[in-house]
């Protein structure tokens, strides 16, 4: 589903990625680990084509992203759901409206929106919270609203950039369980994280970045190198 061939990215002379090569198959659950500044966020941004590579090739669903025209980017992003550490919800809109917004702005039909939004909110256990504003919700609930928003357009790929970074231990597990559930229904999940405990417990595929390079890629891997 995703292939990076020798991808480099240089921002104003600073090397964020230095020849990263990796391949992720449809339906996988992948942890992306590594110290801050190792290039995790840059790598995720490239999948969304928020950044173009300085060198190398990237394919998402068989399409070359490096050579993608500006007008083709929206179609790419509609295949991808995105979740962040800071939730990025619109504060003046309710949970329902936040999720519906993602459908409205890509031109979904109102009837379809009215059907789909409650469905995905229910799936995230947020049926009761639909009419609440983000500030009335707990951190875990807010992140679940964000996940609902990421899923509402049925993406093939869900990217989570440190989704548990702002959450306490129990809530973090709650979110991870959500992501695993989503993955078990066929959605590819890529999660960048610093949560050692979670990575070590789940034993999923782990890709480790350091100084812009892939230094480790293990199935059933751990957060740190097994030494």
């Amino acid at each position, binding site marked *: 589903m995703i292939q990076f061939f020798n991808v480099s990215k240089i921002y104003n002379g600073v090397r964020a990625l230095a020849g990263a090569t990796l391949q992720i198959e449809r339906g996988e659950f992948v942890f992306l680990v590594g110290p801050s500044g190792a290039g995790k966020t840059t790598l995720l941004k490239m999948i*969304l084509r*928020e950044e173009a590579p300085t060198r190398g090739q990237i394919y998402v669903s068989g399409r070359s992203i490096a050579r993608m025209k*500006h*007008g083709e*980017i*929206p*179609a*790419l*992003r*509609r295949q991808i759901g*995105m979740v962040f550490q800071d939730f*990025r919800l*619109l504060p003046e809109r309710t949970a329902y409206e936040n999720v519906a*917004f*993602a459908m*409205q*702005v*890509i*031109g979904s*039909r*109102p009837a379809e929106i009215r059907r789909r939004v409650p469905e995905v909110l229910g799936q995230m256990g947020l049926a009761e919270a639909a009419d609440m504003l983000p500030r009335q919700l707990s951190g875990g609930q807010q992140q679940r609203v964000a996940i609902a*928003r990421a899923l509402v*357009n049925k993406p093939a790929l869900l990217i989570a950039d440190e989704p548990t970074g702002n959450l306490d231990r129990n809530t973090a597990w709650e979110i991870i369980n959500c992501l695993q559930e989503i993955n078990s229904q066929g959605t590819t999940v890529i999660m960048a994280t610093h949560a050692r405990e979670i990575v070590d417990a789940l034993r999923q595929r782990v890709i480790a970045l350091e100084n812009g390079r892939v230094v480790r890629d293990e199935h059933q891997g751990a957060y740190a190198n097994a030494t």
Partner: protein
Amino acid sequence: MPPKTWGYILQESIRSLKRNGWLNFAAAGTTAVSLFILGVAILLVINTNFIAGSWGSNVEIMAYLNDGVTGDAVTALRTQILTIPEVKDVRFISKDEALAGLEQQFGQNGQLQESLGGSNPLPDAFEVKTTDPRDVDGVASLLGLMPGVSQVSYGQGVVDKLLELTYWIRLVGLAIVGLLGLCAIFLIATTIRLTMYARRREIGIMKMVGATDWYVRWPFLLEGVILGTTGALLAIAILYFSYSTLTSKIMETLPFLPLMNSSLVLLQLFAGLLATGAGLGIVGSLISMHSYLQT
């Protein structure tokens, strides 16, 4: 653009118009002032041309003939004058007619003739009219070169001054309108940039979930158009009321001063101002988008 999203676009535009109240006022106000001045300048030019046209057609060239040019020579000269393409009309005024005219204007019966001692010092003359007042100068000098013509005179001064005036009105008007137009564009662009800043989260999310560029841009473009046309409507309203008051006042007090009063011309002018206002709005929003909505 599917029609169902128009509701969204309008809603977003109105929401942001409510948000920056003061700046909206400044942007629409500057647009209004610049378009008002543009309208005034255009009306001035239209009216001076109009006046020059209607006065100019009354301005005849008098070509005075040498003594002794009579009969066939007069007929030949008349034919020659009529071959000049700019000439509309030629009338021969004999010295007797001219004297009679003078007498009518100044004298009591017979008094003038008496004081002249029965002789008539006036020459025969041709009164020549041109189709376009701007050709008066050229035709007059042509007439001066013709054999048998002793002297040419015409009221060129007034027409020339009027035409010169329109030139300056155009120049100064254009300069002021240009400067104010730039101010209007700048203020519209600033207003819209503030809106974009206030909505940066929404914009970010729209792009993240794959909204097209134009879907993101439309509300801002519409906001610019609303600001520009609001300014234009304001300018048109003021222009309309002040101009119709002015024309009716002048009609009462200075009836010999002809003013352009065609509602078709006014309508065209107002439509032009409205389009210019919308254009200023579009340019303002495009400037903001260019610097803010890349990728």
